[in-house]
């Protein structure tokens, strides 16, 4: 199966192709920026990014957004992993909670932000909880599915070597679900970041979401573009690294 091959033949050609796609996108962007005055030039955008990265207020916003996203991601992985474990291990829990979880997964979580604001306050609290809600479900669902599909023989092996619960968890269960777990973690990384930034679009004192919105309403599109692309690039690189890791362990 091609998915199990760590490095498909012609891997470097594929990499070259992927880079060429990115280059082509920048060329299209350059051309488009000459056709429409609202589109900032790629060079102007890069300039704005360099200027921003030298600005201590921007860096404070970047720090706040990334810290909130990190906290949200860690909580999403922990909470989602534990609930997923419970759901995967217990048929009873699956029967009772599966429909509710399917529905909650489909609900656009952002509409709950006004609800979170008075409870968790305007600072870090409410955005971390929003990021947690965004990142929770992929971890939960993937872990639950992974645990449920562990072959019976693994459990029999655990019993036959008299592994205790902790040993079963670390030596049998976690290695067995590493694929789906990584898939969930990869999705949770970018979703937590998106949850935090969307919360900042809505209401916050600090953070990159606010920077984006301010430069949007100020008509400073180069600044807006560079901040969005910075966020996208962070999420892109992290996802890509996790995806490569995921393919290697499979």
């Amino acid at each position, binding site marked *: 199966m091609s998915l199990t091959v760590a490095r498909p033949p012609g891997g470097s050609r594929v990499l070259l192709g992927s880079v*060429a796609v990115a280059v082509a996108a920048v060329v299209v962007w350059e051309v488009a920026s000459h056709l429409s005055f609202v589109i900032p030039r790629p060079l102007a955008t890069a300039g704005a990014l360099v200027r921003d990265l030298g600005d201590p207020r921007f860096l404070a916003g970047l720090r706040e957004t990334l810290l909130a996203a990190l906290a949200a991601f860690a909580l999403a992985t922990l909470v989602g992993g534990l609930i997923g474990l419970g759901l995967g291990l217990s048929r009873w829990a699956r*029967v009772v909670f599966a429909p509710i979880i399917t529905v909650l997964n489909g609900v656009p979580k952002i509409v709950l932000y006004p609800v979170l604001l008075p409870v968790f306050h305007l600072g870090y609290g409410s955005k971390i909880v929003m990021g947690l809600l965004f990142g929770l479900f992929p971890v939960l*669902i993937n872990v*639950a599915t992974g645990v449920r599909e562990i072959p019976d023989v693994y459990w029999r092996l655990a019993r036959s070597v008299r592994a205790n619960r902790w040993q079963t968890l670390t030596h049998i269960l976690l290695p067995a679900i590493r694929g789906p777990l990584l898939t969930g973690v990869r999705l949770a990384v970018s979703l937590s970041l998106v949850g935090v930034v969307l919360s900042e679009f809505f209401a916050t004192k600090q953070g990159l979401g606010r920077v984006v919105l301010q430069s949007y309403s100020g008509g400073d599109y180069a600044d807006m573009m560079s901040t969005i692309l910075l966020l996208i690039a962070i*999420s*892109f690189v992290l996802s*890509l690294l996790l*995806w490569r890791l995921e393919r290697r362990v499979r």
Partner: protein
Amino acid sequence: MSVRAPEAVAGTARRPAVRRRRRRPGSGLVSALATVVLVVLAGAVAEVGARAGWWTPDVLPAPSDILPATAQIVAAPEFWPDALRTGTELLLSCVFGVLAGLLLGVAFWKAPGVGRVFEPYLVSFYAVPLVLFYPIAIVLIGINQWSVIVLASIMTAIPMTLNTWTGLRAIPPVYLKLAASIRCSRSQTLFRVALPAAAPYVFAGLRLGVVYALIGTVAMEFTTAQAGLGYQIRYLYESFDAVGMYAYILVIVAVSVLLTAVLEIAERLLLRRRDA
């Protein structure tokens, strides 16, 4: 089955045809009953808490206030322009996204080299992060429904593409050999053999795509728009109308339940016909 799509978010939707038949009879009924009990329980806690003043009414009003307000809002004529706007955006992005996803999935299957070149982007932009492009889209397209539709279509297209492609790659080669040996034309091979064989994956992609279309549409309306259900929630929040806001949140939850149910039923019907 050792193949796991890299995009297995809704794991429950992954191997529907195999899983569901193994379910013991009656578990569906227990599930439904348990869900009703849980919802009623949550409603009761909210009611008692709001009445007893455990929290202020602007945090969470009593359900006995929200439910009549919801009925009133849905019955009022002002509700429908927003519902129609969101509905149109949702429908168009699902149609565009699903068609584009199917097309790209088949194209990547035919030309795996091209697919692998684009794969890292599809996987890393996996749907929801695209919401971050919304401010750019409203600068380019304007604050109107098209900026929402364009991004929501792409969000739908990504899981559709990846799942269709994975499903087609997972077809046992013997199916295609059989099709060749009985001299199926190319379109017959695709529509009669390949796509039906990949159907469980395609459906998993469809479910994900529709969920993302809803999430994306509402999130973008919520961020900035002039109309739509997501916009109304923000508007009511900013005018301190907690009951009205929760009523609209309930409407959106109802829409997502409805979509999930419709997709589930459609999937069962279509896959049953395929398996029969």
